[in-house]
């Protein structure tokens, strides 16, 4: 069975239909890119999968790891292994990164019925993860995302992903606001986390990230539907000829 199966998913925001029948199947170990012009519903799809309030599902279903994903609260989805890397990571003044991540990791461990980490064990665990990604862990001492540069925020998301070991990672416009050096650092982190057990949904407007995180499949989302799917060459085609060409062909 596929890790993620989205069937005829419809969703609306403030009464306005955004997703109009999405069908998508992602197997464990695969990286799928979802590309599309602004306003096509890319971010809505990521929020619907993560369970954000205000994104109302009006039809269809999402089966994740054999469960009805849409019935779960956001925190339950996270504990089941769904991870959303935010396009705009939220600043949380007064909460140290370590404290935040320890709460997150222990929530998941509790959910899974394994013993929670104490402060010492956790620090050791996080240091190991940061080292695997070749990232400094000093930003965990600071308040979550407060005063971080765009690159630091995205690096922080990647480190969180490594620490939380998701089965399904949704990367929402992870490349936005990054210069090429920061993009490489984040892409290296994401690539280090690819594995046979883990699926990734990489949502992006531009092809540039896909030079570094090479997808198994590419889908084009337009006006709330997937209008074309293909392999990585589809991303290159989009880069070369633009969205208009594909939209016309599909019309």
């Amino acid at each position, binding site marked *: 069975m596929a890790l993620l199966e989205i069937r005829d998913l419809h969703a609306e925001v403030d009464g306005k239909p955004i997703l109009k029948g999405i069908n998508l199947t992602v197997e464990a170990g695969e990286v799928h890119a979802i590309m599309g012009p602004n306003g096509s519903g890319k971010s809505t799809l990521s929020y619907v999968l993560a369970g954000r309030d205000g994104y109302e599902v009006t039809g269809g279903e999402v089966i994740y790891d054999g469960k009805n994903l849409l019935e779960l609260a956001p925190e339950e*989805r996270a504990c089941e292994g769904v991870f959303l890397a935010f396009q705009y990571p939220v600043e949380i003044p007064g909460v140290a990164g370590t404290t*935040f991540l320890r709460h997150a990791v222990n929530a998941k461990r509790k959910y899974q019925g394994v013993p929670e980490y104490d402060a010492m064990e956790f620090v050791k665990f996080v240091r190991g993860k940061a080292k695997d990604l070749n990232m400094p862990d000093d930003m965990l001492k600071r308040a979550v995302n407060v005063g971080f540069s765009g690159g630091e925020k995205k690096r922080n998301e990647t480190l969180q992903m490594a620490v*939380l070991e998701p089965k399904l990672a949704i990367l929402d416009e992870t490349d936005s606001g990054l210069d090429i050096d920061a993009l490489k650092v984040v892409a290296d982190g994401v690539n280090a986390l690819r594995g046979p057990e883990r699926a990734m949904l990489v949502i992006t407007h531009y092809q540039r990230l896909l030079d570094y995180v090479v997808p198994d499949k590419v889908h084009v989302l337009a006006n709330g539907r997937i209008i074309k799917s293909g392999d990585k060459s589809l991303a290159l085609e989009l880069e070369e000829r633009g969205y208009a060409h594909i939209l016309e062909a599909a019309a």
Partner: protein
Amino acid sequence: MTEPVKEHAPEPALERLLDAAPGTGAGEGADRGPLAKLRSDGKRAVLAAGLPTQKSEPWKYTSLNALRKIEWSGPTADGADFATVQAALPDLDAYTVVLLNGRFDPVLSDLAGLPKGVRVLPLPEAMSDTAVSDTLASLIPLGNAPMAALNTAHLDDGVLLRVDDGKALDKPLHVISVGYAPSSPTSFHPRILIQLGENAEAVVVESHIGLDGAPTFSNTVVEAVLAPSSRLGHYKLQDQPAESFDLSTTAIRCADKAVYDGFTLSLGRGTMRNDVRLTLDGERVEGRLNGAYLGHLSSHVDNTTFIDHAKPNSTSREVFKGVLADASRGVFQGKILVRPDAQNTDGHQLNKSLLLSDKAEADSKPELEIYADDVRCSHGATIGALDDDQLFYLRARGIDAATARAMLVQAFLMEALDEIRKVSVRDALHDHLAARLQPLFEGGLA
């Protein structure tokens, strides 16, 4: 038809409160002793003003009606259990003075090893020094401070801290004011006088706590005089039980280049009101008046502050942050006065409230009165709920909604504590606050 009330006849509640004052009890002779004159001034002032009502602007948001209904008596030694009191004392690496129902308690206090040039004494013992007797009760005009007048009418105990020129207190002085009413409702009037000489330095921590029992009414007055270039860290914890009224009037006067770093953390379950008057009576003074409060159950916290920029080139900074849960109420009234003389004043004020319940209430009233033309002054007030984006971010990482809310509340208050400059006190209050907030993570505050 009711009979017209006789002019100047005090209301019964005030009369009853004054019954406990020395020299006013039935059958006693004329009031004597070094403090008698002040007591009589205080009594006259409070009789003239009466107990405050909400018609008076500074008391607009705080009612004393519940206090009026209780039959108060002065402190007695009946049933005082020292072991119980001792066990309740908060721990801090500090010299300790315990004011038990306002009385300097020599047994519970610990002042061993005070450095040279530092005196900590019961106030009556210090009155032979004219530097003390001339200062006591001089900072607060009793005519516009009825509660301070009521305190002064009872003035026969309290504590003096005096640090001589160029001397420093090597550890904080922890003044623990304990309210203890084992049998009947008890009113008391703690008094603290702080005098820092030129270039002297001290940290004073006030903890206002109470033991469960009958209601208590604590009416504190603190006066602090900072000579040129002296530095005072002045931190206060309010953590009294539900059946308590914890009121205070605090006046601080700073001379040239003095630094005052004040912080009030209000966590009590009853009624709290802090009237703080900070006078920057010198140039290049740095005045900091900050605080955090947690309203819960039906507690009431009122911080009414007045920062008086009397001379040029001084700065003031004021940040009060409050979280209001259940049916609690938080009041912030902050007035900043910049006198015509006080050119180049830099004054900033901020009040932020977080409302956690539909029944909670926050009132915020900033007031800038500026008579100088070259000043930088600002104020801001926000009242809001928890941030949805932050809540979703935490939940998307697996943290359940209740824990996420508790984390954000804790963060909001902890951030306010960062204003405290004395690190050891900041850490101690941090730990105390964390312990008090722990129930939030387990379902709700108690």
